């Protein structure tokens, strides 16, 4: 587990360094390798975030699919916000609902909460054990099941495969 965390965090740091410097000189890459090695040894192996992603073909395919779903939802949510703001009568019907998630890993829950915040009309306010409290700008039904169906399901099926 520690080896996996170390390797993944090292690769992430090296990629960040290369993108930041945007140069392919040998000396720059060498300095980047040294710096990311040091930081991965000092901080990377303690961070559970880097060890929780699964490395299989199925997970990667799901990651790509998830990215597209996420971008589509982001654009939809912005058009939604724009229409609500520009509408003179301000059609909102807000409330805080409770939804349930099956995800166990911490990273998966963080990504889920962030995705919920960026999708149409929802904002994750708190997370307690397996329940997420979501501020919904247009509450349709207060039932736990239907809210879960409406808000969480579309991301959860991908994140379950990616993070387990």
């Amino acid at each position, binding site marked *: 587990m520690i080896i996996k965390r170390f390797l993944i965090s090292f690769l992430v740091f090296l990629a960040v360094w290369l993108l930041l410097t945007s140069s392919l000189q040998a000396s720059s890459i060498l300095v980047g390798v040294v710096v990311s090695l040091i930081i991965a040894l000092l901080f990377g192996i303690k961070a559970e975030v880097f060890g929780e992603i699964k490395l299989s073909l199925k997970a990667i395919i799901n990651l790509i699919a998830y990215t597209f779903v996420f971008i589509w939802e982001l654009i939809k949510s912005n058009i939604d916000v724009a229409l609500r703001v520009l509408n003179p009568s*301000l059609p909102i019907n*807000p409330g*805080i609902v409770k939804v349930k998630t099956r995800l166990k890993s911490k990273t998966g829950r963080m990504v889920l909460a962030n995705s919920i915040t960026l999708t149409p009309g929802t904002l994750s306010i*708190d997370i307690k054990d397996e329940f997420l*409290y979501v501020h919904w700008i247009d509450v349709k039904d207060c039932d736990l099941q239907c809210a879960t169906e409406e808000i969480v399901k579309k991301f959860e099926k991908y994140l379950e495969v990616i993070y387990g």
Partner: protein
Amino acid sequence: MEALKYIGAIISLFGSIFLFLGALGLIRMPDVYNRIQAGTKASTLGTILTLLGIGLIMPSWGGKLFILIMFVIITNPVSSHVLSRAAHHIGVNMYKNTVTDLLEKDENNTNSKPEKQ
């Protein structure tokens, strides 16, 4: 090449319009949670689109712009989550037409809510 630049400029324009709409939502929405919703969503996509358009105009800047976009995507929802959590914890008034507040109810049930500020 020239056409790509125009597409980039148009995308930047859309991004800035979304930023503007987010700020407008900040003014029009009635309570703090709805303001956080409008502010976060619109400003995130607005910034991403602006940076994307600039990346199309200047393709060699791609690396730094990509880092910037990833940074905005990760940090912005987290900060709005923390802020809305704090707002709910100290009991900021909600909009008068709010339908339901299950978090308030659950916290009252477990009696873990400290005194309001």
